[in-house]
């Protein structure tokens, strides 16, 4: 180690303190815990010599439980919640030598596409502080973009790692459903949620995956599939790799500058030896409607646990004559923000008697068709290794610009939600800037449990481009 863990920790904490007034990226800065960890690593260099993340400062989205360190999900409901246990990803990161320096701001209970739905206020984009960083892992993406930490953890239910990574100009990977344990992740939509890394470089994402991936007895949905060494997969050789391009899907609704950056990125991949293959994803245009029926149904069930009894907020001012039901309903009304209420309402409705078949069952059937489209792309005549799309159809928009129209906000997730519905891995890598110097992201979606191929293609692209070297104004 050329620099002590304590030095790295001090630098990260100082940087967090200096950027936070403008970015609002952190809910909690873990000064004491971080210095203790760093000192312990510095005190025993032999033990940590070969640890893959020894002394690396890491920021963690505030919906991932950290023992003894406040974990709020950016909700008034959990404003003072201190978990009695660590998420498995935290245990694994710390065993690999990482130092958790901060909990990052996010959309409340990871619901949103702009990081404006936080009880702590919106996160601001380091490239333009009048704009959103994307959501819901906006604080994690902003923290990496602004050089506070080299690596952060996010979670992704419908694009919440990839979309903010794209809008902040960093790399973000949503692993295959089941690849990374979700024990200790505050549940949003259980058939869609995944934890994954955000970093400046693909290699750092790969190294982090080596640490956090793999089965976990505490999460029955975690998969026992073998975990390859993701870092050694980064050979730079993508000769013959087949990249599917669903051109028809991209014909409408994509910002012209985003589109230009995307197609230029495809040229770079082709020049490196990849083959571009036109594919159809006939049901992908229905993914948004499908996603918002499935995810809200699951969220309405998951968030039923917040009742003011075992932990979290409880409304006050009750009379003896008030019923338990009144306490529940007032507690939830006072502590959930508008977007969370909206989604609980939608989810409750689509699961209710009389509407279940028309909405929830229909959405589950659509999910099958969306999944089959990908299976056809990977295993059919096209036989692609990855599917390329822009991560977001638009660059970062202005704070407040879409806040009053939930449907418009949901449409920002058009290219990201299908990977969650199909359980597939997907990575976003920076692929250029708009004329207003706003980052654009290239998304690659891959076969189940084949993150290695995605990361190899993304890293090969990174070798031929220099987007990652560009620094946002707030990093000065």
């Amino acid at each position, binding site marked *: 180690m050329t620099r002590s863990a304590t030095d790295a920790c001090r630098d990260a904490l100082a940087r967090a303190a200096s950027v936070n007034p403008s970015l609002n990226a952190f809910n909690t800065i873990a000064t004491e815990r971080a210095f203790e960890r760093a000192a312990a690593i510095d005190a025993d260099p032999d033990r940590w010599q070969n640890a893959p993340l020894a002394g690396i400062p890491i920021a963690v989205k505030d919906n991932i439980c950290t023992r003894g360190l406040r974990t709020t999900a950016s909700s008034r409901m959990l404003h003072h919640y201190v978990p009695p246990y660590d998420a498995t990803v935290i245990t694994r990161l710390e065993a690999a030598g990482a130092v958790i320096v901060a909990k990052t701001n996010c959309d409340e209970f990871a619901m949103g596409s702009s990081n404006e739905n936080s009880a702590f206020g919106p996160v601001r984009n380091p490239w333009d502080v009048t704009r959103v960083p994307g959501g819901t892992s906006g604080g994690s993406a902003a923290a990496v973009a602004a050089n506070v930490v080299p690596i952060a953890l996010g979670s992704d239910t419908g694009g919440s790692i990839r979309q903010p990574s794209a809008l902040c100009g960093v790399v973000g990977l949503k692993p295959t459903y089941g690849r990374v344990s979700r024990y200790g992740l505050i549940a949003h939509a259980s*058939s869609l949620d995944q934890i994954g890394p955000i970093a400046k470089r693909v290699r750092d994402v790969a190294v982090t995956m080596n640490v956090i991936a793999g089965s976990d007895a505490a999460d029955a949905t975690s998969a026992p599939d073998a975990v390859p060494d993701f870092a050694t997969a980064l050979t730079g050789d993508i000769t013959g790799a087949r990249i599917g391009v669903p051109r028809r899907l991209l014909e409408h609704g994509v910002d012209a500058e985003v589109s230009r950056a995307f197609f230029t990125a495809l040229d770079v991949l082709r020049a490196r030896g990849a083959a571009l293959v036109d594919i159809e994803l006939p049901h992908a245009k229905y993914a948004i*409607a499908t996603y918002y029926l499935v995810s809200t149904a699951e969220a309405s069930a998951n968030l039923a646990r917040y009742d003011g*009894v*075992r932990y979290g907020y409880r409304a006050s001012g009750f009379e003896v004559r008030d*019923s338990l039901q009144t306490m529940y309903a007032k507690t939830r009304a006072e502590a959930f923000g508008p977007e969370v209420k909206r989604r609980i*309402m939608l989810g*409750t409705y689509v699961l209710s008697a009389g509407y279940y078949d028309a909405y929830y069952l229909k959405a589950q059937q659509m999910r*099958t068709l969306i999944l089959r489209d990908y299976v056809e792309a990977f295993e059919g005549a096209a036989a692609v290794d990855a599917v390329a799309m822009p991560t977001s159809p638009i660059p970062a928009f202005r704070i407040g610009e879409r806040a009053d129209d939930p449907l418009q906000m949901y449409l920002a997730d058009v290219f990201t939600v299908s990977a969650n519905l199909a359980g597939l891995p997907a990575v976003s890598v920076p692929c250029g800037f708009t004329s207003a110097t706003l980052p654009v992201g290239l998304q690659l979606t891959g076969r189940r449990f084949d993150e290695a191929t995605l990361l190899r293609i993304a890293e090969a692209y990174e070798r031929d481009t220099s987007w990652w070297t560009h620094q946002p104004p707030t990093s000065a």
Partner: protein
Amino acid sequence: MADPAAQFDVSAVAALANLDLTADELRLFAQQLGDVLAYAQELQQIDTTGVPPTASIGTRHGVDRPDVTQPSLDRDGALAAAPDANVDEGFFKVPRVIG
């Protein structure tokens, strides 16, 4: 199907969801959720007859484990974050449930 916005009984749904919403919230959500449901109507264009539903992309492996007691959160730890608890007696406190 009828206009989804018209059939959306927002008060009934709020009651089911244990949310004590204000009149303004009810009005706003009725309109916004009506918009989302109207948008979701596009799914009805697709014939899904005979298509099996996908609830989850599950693991293909069994997840059974031996039925052996393992350490877990102790009682004090479980009660520590409660908004109202009697730690000595070991219970959560809630408003009156019966009469």
